């Protein structure tokens, strides 16, 4: 299973593990839901991060983001001690004692005055299961409110809802191994090549080694689509129509598993009837989905004729006002063919966060109680007894969007946000931000001193441990529980989240929060999962309820369920029925007629899709610190089809103002055929910390799926127009600067500098004044060209450049300047070399394609021209693509386009 690259990494990591620096720590990556194992070590030379060759999620591989984890561990900007907002608006350090006391008292006071539903906790898929558990126990068992929700609501609530409806529980039937042994993989609404690179590599290896086929269904021609045998560029919102059409086709061609349907399911006939109304035939499917009949036919035929088929899906399915229906439309086809929970045959949801699954297991969502139990009387009673809880909540709480609406309406008066940034990530984020300002009491537990949420008037900041410092468990997309272990010293006064929740609970006077360790919490969590379970609930890790502290420390990755008495966890569910509905049968759920929550209109004629990019994760609090990761796509951007660009006057690499009914952003326009006509795409990663006017959440419509409560984040009606600035350029600084209002900027982590891309209408004089204010000396060198309006200014502290500004009529490249800026001793005419924008020492390598080895496009193009005709050949020559493989599709398409240009194709 191990390829050469992995072996190299293994050897390297073993060297390190046996070296004088001590053993490497086995932990898991803090990014997406793949949950890759990581070997981490830390010494005076910094952190060393490699893939864990023994972890079954990744077998030693890491993607570009995981590989760069070592660059993200600095303490710059960290919240290191509790802080309280003073009356003048500034934050001041306070003691933990005061912080905990104040939190407990304010919550108690507000609950006593307005009832338990006047308080809420908003959690994060990046919290550990133990953190989730204590927060959930406190709220639902003792405070007595189910106003506990999480950013996972924005990410995978529709999958939860769809699985609950079909299976009677939020159960992931399959596992990653299915991707290795499937003969057909269908990816729906998933840019796995960028967002789940390690799983995508497993699919691609299956393709190469076993000849598996890959079909990609997406509205955008993504990097993932580039690797597909068949790409279906579907009309947005029409996934149900495609899968309803498939269901009809399967029934018509007798590809269904009648025995499975008969023995283990119910509602098939109704599902067929409903699907027939929507898509009686391929032509009808074609009409709705906007696909070519031949492509639809080929997809149906391949699906029907391939026993081992995995349909993996992600945000393109979930983030929809009909996301639950989309999930069920997919599951229907797997139920109908009995291809579920069998090797290489299953639906598989790809989760976006490292522990969204753990949150679901705990029940850290407003519509679940605890440990995969709902609000039925039996469950409520069971949980009350297990917790000895006086006031277990008996009804669902408010889901994320509704929760912030209740805050806006003043119904919720106290909020505790933990490890997430709703002022950036929620739909209609400006309204969420305004709502938070109205709170009577607003506490934030986080790693950072400043983000959009904290700056929305948080009264109290509680410093939490970050990845590498905290210890506990996470669950990945295949139900695999892995340990996250600390390998860094805990900085300042930071504490684990579970311990903060416990301390507040104790001060509120509640019993049952005397946890001494994460292991303590985990045992109780495992105990609850097994409590009066008797195989009635899918989530049961009773086998782990008696772990000693040492066992917990050594815990190997294990899948749930892992029931007491069993030697190991279970790989798959439902291959032979055993659903968690009252009658034990799976349900076919008929999707409603596809429709969008919003309509395009004359003022907003386009639809705005949002998503991730390859080298950033969420709001960049961690990835944004890595110079390597900043290189791929350094600026917030909007992808737009050439025809739309022409119609709206937007130019490639120009700036564009994107607006919706809810907000507006200014983004770099990327004109690309990959984007369908009528639809634009913008990434979610930038916030007010990293850019001016690029907080995409502010543009997203707040309409949700009625069942899952997940917002339709990928189809907001939008307008686009060119946004002209007199000049563009960049600023290199040693530390973050405070820009004057009205300037467009975005921050990029660089080696030895903080970089800002800038667009500006300011005059030279205004800029010089700004630089003077930001500078500690008045020592500067300056270059101006009145005609081209070029302005380049470097300010020095001794021989060390402190600030360097470069402005001109077009965007200015900064690679050469950065190489000089990075020098600490510049003397004589070298000082002015910085102004030339050129450096003999650095060669312009073009945009970075392979982040792992820092290989640029120009180098790769040259190698292709010199005869490297395969990705392997490129890998041998330049090492590009041989580590994380995230860039292989890009390299492949470079080879293809060169061959096309050469007339070979």
């Amino acid at each position, binding site marked *: 299973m191990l390829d050469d690259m992995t072996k190299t990494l293994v050897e390297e990591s073993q060297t390190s593990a046996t070296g004088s620096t001590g053993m490497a720590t086995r932990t898991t990556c803090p990014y997406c839901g793949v949950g890759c194992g990581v070997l981490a070590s830390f010494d005076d030379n910094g952190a060393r991060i490699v893939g864990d060759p023994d972890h079954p999620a990744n077998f030693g591989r890491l993607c570009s983001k995981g590989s760069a984890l070592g660059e993200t561990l600095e303490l710059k900007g960290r919240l290191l001690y509790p802080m309280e907002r003073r009356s003048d608006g500034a934050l001041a350090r306070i003691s933990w004692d005061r912080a905990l006391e104040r939190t407990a008292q304010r919550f108690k006071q507000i609950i006593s005055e307005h009832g338990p539903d006047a308080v809420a906790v908003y959690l994060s898929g990046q919290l550990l299961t133990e953190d989730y558990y204590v927060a959930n126990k406190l709220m639902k068992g003792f405070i007595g409110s189910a106003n506990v929700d999480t950013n996972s609501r924005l990410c995978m609530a529709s999958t939860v809802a769809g699985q609950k409806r079909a299976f009677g529980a939020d159960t992931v039937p399959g596992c990653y191994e299915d991707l290795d042994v499937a003969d057909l993989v269908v990816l729906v609404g998933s840019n796995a090549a960028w967002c789940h690179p390690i799983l995508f590599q497993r699919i691609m290896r299956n393709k190469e080694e076993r000849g598996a086929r890959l079909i990609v269904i997406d509205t955008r021609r993504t990097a993932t689509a580039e690797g597909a045998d068949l790409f279906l560029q579907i009309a947005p919102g029409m996934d149900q129509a495609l899968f309803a059409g498939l269901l009809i086709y399967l029934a018509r061609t007798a590809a269904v598993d009648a025995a499975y349907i008969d023995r283990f399911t119910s509602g098939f006939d109704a599902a067929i009837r409903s699907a027939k109304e929507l898509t009686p035939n391929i032509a009808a499917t074609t009409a709705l989905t906007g696909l070519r009949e031949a492509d639809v036919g080929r997809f149906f035929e391949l699906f029907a004729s391939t026993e081992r088929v995995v349909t993996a899906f992600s945000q393109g399915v979930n983030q929809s006002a009909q996301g639950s229906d989309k999930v069920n439309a997919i599951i229907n086809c797997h139920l109908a063919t009995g291809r579920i929970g069998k090797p290489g045959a299953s639906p598989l949801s790809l989760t976006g966060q490292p522990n969204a699954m753990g949150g679901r297991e705990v029940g850290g969502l407003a519509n679940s109680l605890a440990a995969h139990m709902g609000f039925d009387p039996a469950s409520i009673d069971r949980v009350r007894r297990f917790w000895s809880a006086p006031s277990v909540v008996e009804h669902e709480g408010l889901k994320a969007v509704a929760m912030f609406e209740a805050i806006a309406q003043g119904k919720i008066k106290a909020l505790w946000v933990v490890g997430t940034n709703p002022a950036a990530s929620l739909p209609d984020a400006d309204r969420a931000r305004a709502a938070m300002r109205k709170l009577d009491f607003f506490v934030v537990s986080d790693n950072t001193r400043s983000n959009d949420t904290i700056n929305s008037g948080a009264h109290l900041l509680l410093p939490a441990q970050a990845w590498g410092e905290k210890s506990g468990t996470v669950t990945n997309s295949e139900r695999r529980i892995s340990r996250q272990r600390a390998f860094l010293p805990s900085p300042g006064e930071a504490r684990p989240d579970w311990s903060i929740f416990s301390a507040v609970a104790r001060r509120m006077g509640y019993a049952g929060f005397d946890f001494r360790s994460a292991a303590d919490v985990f045992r109780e969590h495992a105990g609850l999962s097994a409590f009066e379970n008797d195989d009635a609930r899918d989530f049961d890790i009773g086998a782990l309820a008696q772990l000693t502290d040492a066992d917990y420390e050594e815990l190997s990755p294990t899948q749930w369920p892992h029931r007491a008495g069993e030697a190991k966890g279970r790989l798959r569910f439902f291959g032979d029925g055993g659903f968690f509905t009252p009658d034990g049968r799976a349900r076919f759920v008929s999707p409603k007629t596809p429709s969008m929550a919003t309509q395009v209109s004359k003022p907003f004629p386009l639809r705005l899709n949002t998503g991730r990019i390859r080298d950033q994760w969420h709001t960049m609090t961690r990835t944004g610190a890595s110079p390597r990761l900043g290189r791929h796509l350094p600026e917030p951007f909007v992808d737009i089809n050439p025809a739309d660009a022409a119609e709206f006057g937007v130019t490639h690499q120009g700036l564009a103002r994107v607006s919706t009914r809810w907000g507006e952003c200014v983004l770099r326009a990327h004109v690309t055929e990959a984007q369908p006509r009528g639809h634009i795409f913008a990434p979610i990663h930038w916030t007010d910390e990293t850019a001016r006017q690029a907080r995409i959440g502010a543009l997203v419509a707040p309409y949700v799926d009625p069942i899952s409560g997940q917002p339709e984040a990928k189809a907001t009606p939008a307008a686009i127009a060119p946004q002209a600035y007199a000049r563009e350029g960049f600023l290199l600084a040693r530390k973050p600067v405070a820009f004057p209002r009205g300037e467009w900027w975005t921050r990029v982590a660089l080696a030895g500098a903080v970089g800002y891309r800038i667009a500006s209408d300011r005059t030279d004089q205004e800029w010089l004044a700004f630089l003077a204010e930001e500078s500690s000396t008045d*020592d*500067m*060198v300056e270059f*101006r*060209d009145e005609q081209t309006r070029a302005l380049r200014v470097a300010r020095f502290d001794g021989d060390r450049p402190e600030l360097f500004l470069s402005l001109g009529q077009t965007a200015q490249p900064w690679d050469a300047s950065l190489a000089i800026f990075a020098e600490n001793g510049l003397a004589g005419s070298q000082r002015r070399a910085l102004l030339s924008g050129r450096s003999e020492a650095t060669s312009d390598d073009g945009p970075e394609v392979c982040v792992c080895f820092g290989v640029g496009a120009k180098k790769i193009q040259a190698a292709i021209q010199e005869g490297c005709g395969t990705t392997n050949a490129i890998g041998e020559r330049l090492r590009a693509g041989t580590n994380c493989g995230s860039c292989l599709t890009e390299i492949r398409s470079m080879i293809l386009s060169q061959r096309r240009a050469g007339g070979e194709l």
Partner: protein
Amino acid sequence: MSKPREQWAMNKERLVIIGAGMAATRLVEELVARAPGRYEITLIGEEHALPYNRVLLSSVLAREAALDDVVLKPARWWQDAGVTRIVGRKALCIEPGTQRVTLDGGEALSYSKLVLATGSRAVRLPVEGADLPGVHAFRDLDDVRALGALGAARRRVVTIGGGLLGLEAAYGLAKLGAESTLLHVVDRLMERQLDAEGAALLGRLVEEKGVRVRLGAQTTRIIGRDRVEGVELADGQLIQADAVVFAVGIRPNAELAAEAGLKVERGVVVDDGLMSSDPNIFAIGECAEHRSQCYGLVAPAYEQARVLATRLAGGAAGYEGSVVSTNLKVSGVRVFSAGDYLGGAGASRIICSDSRMGVYRKLVIEGDRLTGAILVGDTSGAQDYLELIRTGADVSAMRNALMFDLPSLKEAA
């Protein structure tokens, strides 16, 4: 091909040159190279010394060049060139009709061709006390000796005039040990070569060299009974001084030509052939006025000398004026200025500066052409810029590289 030398000898023309400075020397040099022996050349000079490089006098004052270094050509060279040198004598009048020049001893020389290379003299301000003992100019070897003595005696010396010459004099004096003050009536130094920013930087750099600079200082009177005691300014201030050096400008020595009836404006008016209003009389150097322009720099004089030599040798050449450039010779304070250094309404500027390192560079571009340049502190590329200004080459394609790496700069490196 050239005519045999014997032929010329039979009817040798007599060439008389009045003035024995740099222009005259260069003319002889060029002419002898082109047409050796064609003329019987006589050189008339007021100074006794061999013709010397006046430009180097500042360096001599500052002890950065030796006296011997300034001599342009040794006596032997003049002999070999067959030139008759008349030294310490003054030409009193020219008679164009009879083609004769009368010297101060009454002796007359006849000429076939006469060249005026009389140069210019320092202007003294028309203020009270301007003729007191202790008031100097900075023009010739005698001045250098006098100023050198003042410096060595650590006297208080006030130099009036913040142009090229005044700066060099004040710097030289300061370097020698004098308490050197530079007064300039305008609010910035070298205003005819520098813009405000370049001048301000120059002022700072010169002050760092020990010269006290006072701008906007209008001299109203030089005080002293028997000799200089101080300088009074328009604002009433009094500056104590043991000596005053005038460096407020030069005036072409054109009186001789005027008295001879030649056309004279500021200088001796010449055409593109350097010919005065008399077809046998020519003028070059600082005494000449060409296209309403009198030059005070050596480069135009040399260009004129070359053109005139070519013509006198029977060749075809024309002088169309010079693009002038200024080089300040103050050690460690390099200043270059050329062309339209300010730039008019249609011009745009490229500026690069490093205040701490004392560097200010400005290029002026009009249309597609480089039309002017100021370089202070770092004068690298000066000759390339001058060449671009002279040729009027299209620089639009190299605009972005113009300040930092001109192709020729790189080749030279």
